[in-house]
C-alpha cells in the first residue's frame, strides 16, 4: 500500500532541499562570493535546463524529432521584450505572454508538421524555425537585423531557479500522467498506439505545444538577461545546442537533460572565447555518444535520490523522481 503520508513527507523534504539550495546560492550571490561572472553562468544554466527539459518532452518522450526549438525560444524572447520594453508592463506578465505566444505558435506549426515523421519532421521544424527568424529579421518594429536592445534586466537567480523548478515539476507530472503515458506509447510505436485507440495527432500536438510554451518562457528569461536580442541569436545552431544537451543527457530522461544542461553550460563558460573549439567538442560529443551509447548518458532512466539516500536533502538538482 502506498502511504500518502510518506509521499507527502518526501515531497516536503524535497521542497525543503530546493529551498535550502536556492537560499545558499542566493546568499553567495548577494554577498558577492559568487561574482557577476558566476551569476550570468548560473542563470544561463537555469535557462538551458528549461530549454533542454522542454525539448526532451518533444524529442525524447514523444519521439517527435524537432529542430525548431530556437524558433519558439525567439518568439518568447521577442514577445516578452515587447511587453516589458515597448509597453512597459510587468515582467511576470511578459513571461506568461512569451510562453503562451510560443505555445500558440507550437499549435500552429505542430498541427501541419506533425503529420510528418522522423527526418522529414526534423527538416520541417528546422524550416519553421528559420522562417520565424527571417520574419523577425524583416520586422522593423523589433529592430530587424540589429535586434532589440535596451531590454530591462529582470532575470535573476530567483526567477530562473523557480521557473526551472516549475518547468521540471510540471513536465515530470505531465509525463507521469495518463497523457504522458500516451506520449511515451507514441514514441515506442506510433502505429500500435493508434490501434490502441490513442489519438496520436492530439497527443503529439499537445506535447509539442507544452514544449514550445516552456521554450518561450526560456526565451523570455533569456531576453531579460542579456539586454539585447537579435534574430541571429536564435538560428538553428541554437537548436542544435539544445539538441546536444538532450541527446547527451539521454532522450527520455529529465535528470539526464538537467545534468547535461549544467555540464554543457559549464563547457560553454570555459570555452567562451573559443566558439569554434566548443562546437567541435559538441559535435564530437554528439558523434561519440551516438556511436557508443546511442541512448545518451542516462538513457531513459532517472536519477533518483530515493535509491541513493534515505532522505532527499543533499542536492536539490536531482530531486525529480
Amino acid at each position, binding site marked *: 500500500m502506498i502511504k500518502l503520508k510518506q509521499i507527502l513527507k518526501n515531497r516536503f523534504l524535497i521542497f525543503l532541499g530546493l529551498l535550502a539550495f536556492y537560499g545558499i546560492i542566493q546568499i553567495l550571490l548577494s554577498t558577492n562570493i559568487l561574482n557577476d561572472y558566476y551569476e550570468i553562468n548560473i542563470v544561463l544554466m537555469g535557462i538551458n535546463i528549461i530549454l533542454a527539459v522542454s525539448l526532451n518532452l518533444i524529442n525524447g518522450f514523444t519521439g517527435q524529432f524537432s529542430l525548431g526549438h530556437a524558433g519558439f525560444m525567439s518568439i518568447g524572447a521577442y514577445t516578452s521584450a515587447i511587453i516589458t520594453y515597448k509597453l512597459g508592463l510587468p515582467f511576470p506578465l511578459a513571461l506568461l505572454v512569451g510562453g503562451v505566444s510560443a505555445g500558440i505558435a507550437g499549435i500552429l506549426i505542430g498541427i501541419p508538421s506533425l503529420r510528418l515523421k522522423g527526418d522529414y519532421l526534423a527538416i520541417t521544424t528546422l*524550416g*519553421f524555425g528559420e522562417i520565424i527568424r527571417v520574419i523577425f529579421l524583416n520586422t522593423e518594429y523589433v529592430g530587424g537585423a540589429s535586434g532589440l536592445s535596451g531590454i530591462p534586466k529582470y532575470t535573476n537567480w530567483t526567477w530562473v531557479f523557480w521557473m526551472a523548478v516549475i518547468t521540471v515539476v510540471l513536465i515530470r507530472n505531465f509525463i507521469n500522467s495518463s497523457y504522458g503515458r500516451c506520449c511515451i506509447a507514441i514514441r515506442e510505436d506510433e502505429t500500435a498506439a493508434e490501434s490502441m485507440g490513442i489519438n496520436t495527432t492530439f497527443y503529439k500536438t499537445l506535447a509539442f505545444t507544452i514544449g514550445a510554451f516552456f521554450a518561450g518562457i526560456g526565451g523570455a528569461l533569456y531576453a531579460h538577461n542579456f539586454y539585447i536580442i537579435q534574430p541571429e541569436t536564435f538560428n538553428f545552431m541554437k537548436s542544435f545546442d539544445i*539538441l546536444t544537451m538532450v541527446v547527451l543527457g539521454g532522450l527520455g530522461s529529465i535528470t539526464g537533460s538537467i545534468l547535461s544542461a549544467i555540464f554543457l553550460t559549464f563547457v560553454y563558460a570555459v570555452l567562451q572565447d573559443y566558439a569554434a573549439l566548443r562546437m567541435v567538442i559538441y*559535435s564530437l560529443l554528439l558523434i561519440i555518444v551516438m556511436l557508443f551509447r546511442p541512448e545518451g548518458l542516462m538513457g531513459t532512466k532517472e536519477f533518483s535520490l530515493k535509491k541513493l539516500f534515505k532522505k532527499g536533502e543533499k542536492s536539490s538538482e536531482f530531486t525529480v523522481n
Partner: protein
Amino acid sequence: MKTFIEQLINGLSLGSIYALIALGYTMVYGIMKLINFAHGDIYMVGAFTGFFASTYFHLGFIPSLLLAMLVSLILGVTIERVAYRPLRDKSKISILITAIGVSLLLENGGIILLSPQVRTYPQIFKQHMYSFFNGIITISNQQIVIFVVSIIMMVGLQLIIYKTKIGKAMRAVSTDPDAARLMGVNVDRTVSFTFAIGSALAAVAGVLVGIYYNSIDPLMGIMPGLKAFIAAVLGGIGIIPGAMVGGLLMGVIEALVSGYGSSLYRDGVSFAILIIILLIKPTGLFGKNIREKV
C-alpha cells in the same frame, strides 16, 4: 523583360549548382534513407580544395576540379565508413543526430584549420559577357562553364546509373537492400560508391561556386546544403531526375525573389517551399504515393 531574363539565367546557373548538390542528397537518401546533413560541408571542402589547388599549386581548371572531386570523394567515403556504417541498423534518429554532428565538426573544424575569413577565389576564367538578340540575353563565360560542366556531370551520372553494373546495384539497393543482398549485391560497397559519387558531385558544385561568386568560407556549405536538400525534396527525394529539376527550380525561384523582392526573404521563401511541398505532396513533384504497411 531584360531583368527577367537576366534573373532567369542567374537562377539557372545557381540552380545547376543546387542540382549537383541535391543529387548527392537524393542518392544517399534513396539508398540509406538518411538525410546526410554533412553533404553541404563536403561541398565546402571541395570548394577549398579547388581554391588551394589553383592558388598555391597553380593548377588549371580541369586538374583542380579533379583534385577537389578526389578529396571530397575520400572524405565522403570515410564519413560513411566511420560515422554512418556502425549505426545503419540503429534508429533513424541516431544516424540523423550523427549526421548533424559530422556537419558541425566539419564546419567548426574548418573554422579552426582554415580560419573563418572569407577567401577570394582566383579568377580562373576572365569574366567575359556574351550578348544575343540585341542584348536581351547576356550570359557570362562563367555561367557557360557552369552549364557545360553540370550537364556533363548529370549525363555522366545517368550513364553510370543506367549502363554500368554498379549502377544496377545502386538501383537494386535503393529498391530493397535485403533483397539486393540476397541476390549477391555487396551492399556495403554499393553504399560507399554512392557516397563517393555524391561527394564528388558536391565538390564540382563547390568549385563552380568558387568560380561564380569568387568567395568561399568554412560556413559556405550550410545554406546551399539546406537548399539543395529542399530541392531534392521538391523533386521527390530518392529520384534522380527530380533532384535536377528541383535544383533548377529552386535556383530560379530564388533569383526571382531576390531580383523582384527583398533578398532578406530569400531564405524564408526556400523554407516555405519546403513546408508547402511536404504538406501538400510529401513525395515531391516526381514521387509516387506509397502506402505504409504494418
